[in-house]
């Protein structure tokens, strides 16, 4: 049994009021996430990669019950998609979230010590006076920081406080939304090393949401690439990096070029921008930007192809 099993997840956002939609004879809602399915085992890391507007953060929100969704979300074998408020309170002890904005997600009025122990306070349970020190040293912060406030921290330190809060309750599943956004290259490594180290010690399963494929390569076991609310390619990280099958994955992979002039290979330039999810293109939704598109890609929706853990939505894979 997998720790987390998501099947045919669909999230719709409202676009128009009901009256306006009826008058215009248009749909009042549009799908932001379409038919997303994956599983995550304990101790493993899955990366969901995509650009802004691809729906990756919406997936994260629906997994912690902050966004109503259709489809099935099973956690530890139990369906949690329709869990009640009180059930969610208990579940959030086991499923925790690291938010994208490290400083914005910390209350400016609480000291760092109160911030890292806040989850313990909310969830009850055994508490001791040295909780704050224990959590701060777990994420490699000096215990002196306990008396400071969020605005006095650097971006990297605020991230570590976010990690400490997310891990305070020993969760089984950690959802990290852009865990390194806004950090310098030398500090990004520190945060990722910390997550890797904590995972190997506690066996927590991690879901990383990011736009940076090159970062995913070093921390995830499996990766799913999202485009316009759908998974377009999914599989073991190694295999996807060695040989991407979907042209969108290939383009994303080329987007973080090596600084070594001897290894410089051209980045793949996609034409245009991601279409609006209000008006999805017919056929393959990527065909308008795809450098390898063929005429029938504009008409025929590609089926999910591939074998085993590896899959992609392309009729003419690379």
């Amino acid at each position, binding site marked *: 049994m997998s720790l987390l099993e998501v099947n045919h997840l669909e999230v719709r956002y409202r676009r128009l009021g009901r009256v306006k939609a009826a008058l215009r004879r248009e749909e009042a809602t549009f799908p932001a996430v379409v038919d997303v399915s994956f599983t995550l085992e304990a101790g493993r890391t899955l990366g969901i990669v995509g650009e802004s507007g691809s729906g990756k953060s919406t997936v994260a929100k629906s997994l912690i019950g902050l966004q109503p969704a259709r489809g099935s979300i099973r956690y530890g074998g139990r369906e949690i998609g329709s869990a009640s408020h009180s059930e969610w309170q208990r579940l959030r002890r086991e499923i925790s979230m690291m938010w994208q904005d490290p400083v914005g997600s910390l209350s400016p009025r609480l000291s760092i010590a109160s911030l890292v122990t806040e989850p313990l306070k909310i969830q009850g349970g055994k508490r001791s006076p040295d909780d704050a020190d224990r959590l701060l040293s777990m994420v490699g912060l000096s215990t002196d920081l306990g008396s400071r406030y969020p605005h006095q921290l650097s971006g990297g330190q605020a991230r570590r406080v976010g990690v400490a809060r997310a891990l305070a309750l020993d969760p089984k599943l950690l959802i990290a939304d852009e865990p390194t956004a806004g950090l310098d*290259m*030398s500090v990004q490594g520190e945060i990722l090393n910390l997550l890797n180290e904590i995972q190997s010690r506690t066996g927590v399963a991690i879901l990383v949401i990011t736009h940076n494929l090159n*970062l995913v390569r070093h921390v995830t076991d499996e990766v799913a690439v999202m485009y316009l609310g759908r998974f377009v390619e999914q599989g073991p990280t190694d295999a996807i990096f060695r040989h991407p099958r979907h042209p969108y994955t290939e383009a994303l992979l080329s987007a*973080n*070029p090596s600084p070594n*002039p001897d290894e410089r290979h051209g980045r793949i330039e996609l034409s245009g*921008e991601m279409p609006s999810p209000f008006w999805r293109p017919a056929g393959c939704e990527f065909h308008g930007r795809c450098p390898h598109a063929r005429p029938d890609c504009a008409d025929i929706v590609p089926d999910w192809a591939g074998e085993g853990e590896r899959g992609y939505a392309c009729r003419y894979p690379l």
Partner: protein
Amino acid sequence: MSEQKLMHSSDAMRGDGHVPLMRIEELSVDFSTARGPIHALRHISLDVAAGRILGLVGESGCGKSSLAYSLIGLLAGNARITHGVIRLGDDDLAHLSAGRWRALRGKRIAMIFQDPMTSLNPVRTIGQQMMDIQYRERITRAEKRKLAVDFLAQVRIPDPEARLDSYPHELSGGMRQRVCIAMALLTRPDLLIADEPTTALDATLEVQIIHLLRDLQQQFGCSVIFVSHHLGTVAELCDDVAVMYAGEVVEQGSVDEIFRQPAHPYTQALLECDPGSIREATRILPTIPGSLPDLRQVPSGCIFQDRCPHVFERCRREHPGFYSGERTQLTRCYRVAGEGEMTS
């Protein structure tokens, strides 16, 4: 070692045969704060070669943006140029009257900012803004409008005529940045300063903007200063690069030389940290241990001494000048001068 020489900073980049458009000499900038002045830039000497793209790279707080802003006279109110000159033609931009700045800014020197939404006026149409910035030109409105359409077409905006009547919020982030580039180039500047122009954009849009900048630079022949923390992008776009750390340029030269054989320990560490340069997947990523020095009390000696794996006694005592080995790149490091050997 006969081939190694101590370069005086004003000789910086003279050996490579490129004609400088702008010459920065010994530029120092302080920011005044309640807890005393921060020495944010110290003795920067750098040439911006005519018709080439110079990358300014470094991590947050290294002073790359402050340097860029000082070159267009847009430093914050609490900043003060304490030392040095910035030569552009017959002007010294470090000591320029407000009137003279008005003549230069937006004409000889233009800038593209990080966030295209906040650098466009939200209550005026794209067309109005593009005609506004041609206020110096003695041409008719129709001619100004035509020029605006031409430049929108240059930056590959589809249906440019119709776009003139759009407001910034009606355009996507990538389109807005294209408009900003078109506006910056409209006055045919000699120097275009781009401050992290792709940081707010998605990866696939970043590629488009980088390729566009490269094409336009070649077409217009202007010099570009490209400020970025992203080494791969700098390697792809720039001809020359200056690596900054804690308010100093620690290494400068051509992109080919510096990224192939970085000589400064900071440049080496930075390149190692870039996930784009690590080919094999690894669970333990390299980092640079330690933290930035306090720029209120700048340590004597080398600025990187506390984080440098190769530090020796002289590094703590004396501040290194620029040295060059057999190549033309300049490095503020005594190791390039030969281990501990006195060369002056």
